């Protein structure tokens, strides 16, 4: 299985490659990719440098162009695809039907990966993307159980990449409009979820309050660890009870599932987090490299090192991890 790591900038890309990523993925500095954060992502020059760095070490580079081209900005998205081709990226990661069509016609030799934003959760959906746009690989949304991943892997016409570690989206990706409901900006249109420019922190007599678009997402008592106000991870009131009504602040960690994923023939595991620091990326990449190497040397007896789990736990949101939807009872 290939280890695919996030590169929010050139230092992160280099650290990921140094620590053993088989491939890294990046985006340009605009709304064409799903991590449009201030100070993040690549100019043409930096991308060229990063790709040269990775290629000279035998590693691959994927370019994420995985937001949906907006009516007024079509050429911005097609230029991004042309640019990725020109740079010599090994694949483009896309979701939009129009853009997939454009890339397939204009750059037939540039591999097309279906982004998680393409919301493909069945082999029929994968067949749709494969037959119409010749996708080579698809990244699966984080909503499937292991049984469902198994069914899908058995019949998939394309390589599958699954999320292994990082922030946990619990809604089917590509079809979540919660962020734009509160802020006007969403992953599909602007490449952001719960954008920082709409966040407000306030110390009040009731405690520390976090707001998104003016809406109270959570309130922390003394000694409570405050988390970023991602809107689905706040504490809300339902029928008089206040709790994490949608999801707890927690991260996905599938280290325990590696033998099964390998047995299913999954092609790649993906680390989420282009918005994370180079130090974070380096640490996570290093642990997963060790894990995959151990898995390869002895798949039957694979056991994650307790120190790996502890280190990954520390790097996680809310310092807790979950198997998410892979594990049926999470639902």
């Amino acid at each position: 299985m290939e280890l695919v790591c996030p590169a929010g900038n050139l230092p992160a890309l280099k650290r990921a490659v140094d620590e053993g990523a088989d491939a890294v993925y990046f985006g340009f500095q605009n709304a064409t990719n799903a991590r449009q954060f201030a100070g993040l992502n690549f100019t043409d020059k930096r991308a060229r440098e990063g790709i040269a760095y990775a290629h000279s070490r035998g590693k691959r580079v994927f370019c994420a162009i995985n937001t949906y081209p907006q009516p007024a900005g079509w050429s911005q998205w097609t230029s991004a695809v042309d640019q990725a081709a020109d740079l010599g990226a090994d694949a483009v990661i896309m979701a939009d039907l129009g853009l997939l069509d454009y890339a397939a016609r204009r750059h037939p030799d540039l591999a097309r990966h279906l982004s998680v934003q393409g919301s493909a959760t069945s082999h029929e959906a994968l067949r749709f993307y494969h037959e119409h746009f010749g996708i080579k690989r698809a990244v699966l949304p984080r909503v499937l159980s292991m049984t469902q991943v198994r069914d899908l892997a058995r019949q998939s016409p394309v390589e599958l990449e699954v999320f292994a570690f990082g922030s946990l989206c619990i809604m089917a990706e590509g079809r979540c409009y919660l962020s734009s409901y509160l802020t006007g900006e969403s992953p599909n249109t602007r490449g952001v979820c719960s954008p920082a420019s709409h966040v407000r922190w306030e110390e009040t007599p009731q405690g520390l309050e976090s707001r998104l678009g003016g809406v109270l997402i959570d309130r922390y008592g003394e000694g409570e660890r405050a988390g970023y106000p991602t809107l689905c991870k706040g504490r809300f009131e339902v029928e008089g009870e206040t709790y994490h009504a949608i999801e707890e602040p927690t991260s996905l960690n599938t280290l325990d599932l590696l033998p099964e994923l390998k047995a299913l023939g999954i092609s790649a595991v993906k680390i989420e987090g282009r918005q994370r620091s180079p130090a974070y990326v380096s640490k996570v990449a290093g642990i997963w490299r060790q894990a995959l190497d151990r898995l390869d040397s002895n798949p039957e007896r694979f056991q994650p090192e307790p120190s790996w789990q502890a280190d990954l736990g520390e790097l996680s949101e809310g310092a807790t991890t979950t198997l998410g939807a892979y594990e049926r009872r999470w639902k």
Partner: protein
Amino acid sequence: MQLSLGPVLFYWTRERYADFYRDAADWPVEIIYLGETVCSRRRDMKLDDWLGIGRELAQSGKQVVLSSQTLIESEADLRGLRKLCANGEFLVEANDQSALQLLIEANLPFIAGASLNLYNPAAIGVLAKAGMQRWNAPVEMPRDDLATLLDECAREGLEQPCEVFAYGHLPLAWSARCFTARRHQYPKDRCQFVCQQYPEGLALRSQEAKGVFTLNGTQTLSGACQDLRREIPDMQSMGVGVARLSPRANAMAEVVHAFDQARRGELPPADPLALIEAEMCDGYWHGRPGMDNSHATIS
């Protein structure tokens, strides 16, 4: 401009569906979408039940469309979807690429649902070539973007009509997790069909009692109810073909009546829907956060 009645997003009892569609047969809507689009565990209504209701509505002169499940997770979901697509009588609204694949492969015409994310003419063109008869704009698309998109589509000869979600709680997200079962601490596999207790969903509020979202099983809807009644004349001038009204358990006849008045340019200045208690919103249309309400100061 035509009016459509979207699929019922909530889980109702058989009796409630039957009563609702008996009434709807006489309402001034041209198109009615039927079927369960949210959760495969909502099994009170079988495909044959929907087909039965569909035949009656068709006899009343409605265009009937069967709407497909949005999040397809299992082989069982796919079996249900295959039956729906092969119904042999009615058009299908594809809400997922799985449905697209089955319909296109069978050379069947289809309607593209809002969750297919058609944001640009190129995407619309791909599906137009594949048999699409009508498409729904993404719920988050602002008016100005839609106007640009419709102009471009017209220039490129894409004549399939566009449908806009004009009234109701906005479908905003789908998950593998059931939030209504979670509220009751039931595992999803043994949810006791608790959704049926909430014919208009379950309100999720901030700790300051502001309505934020509406939980509807595995689906998350907007907390406020979108109401674009006042924008109907603008939609007509832009060339929007269909305004979709999403069913609610109460006062739907009044909602339909108000939109029918609006499309005939006869909307009274006083609010005919003041009886409905839900908070209203229209932010997306105005290029703002979806929850915003441009009429907030008036009401």
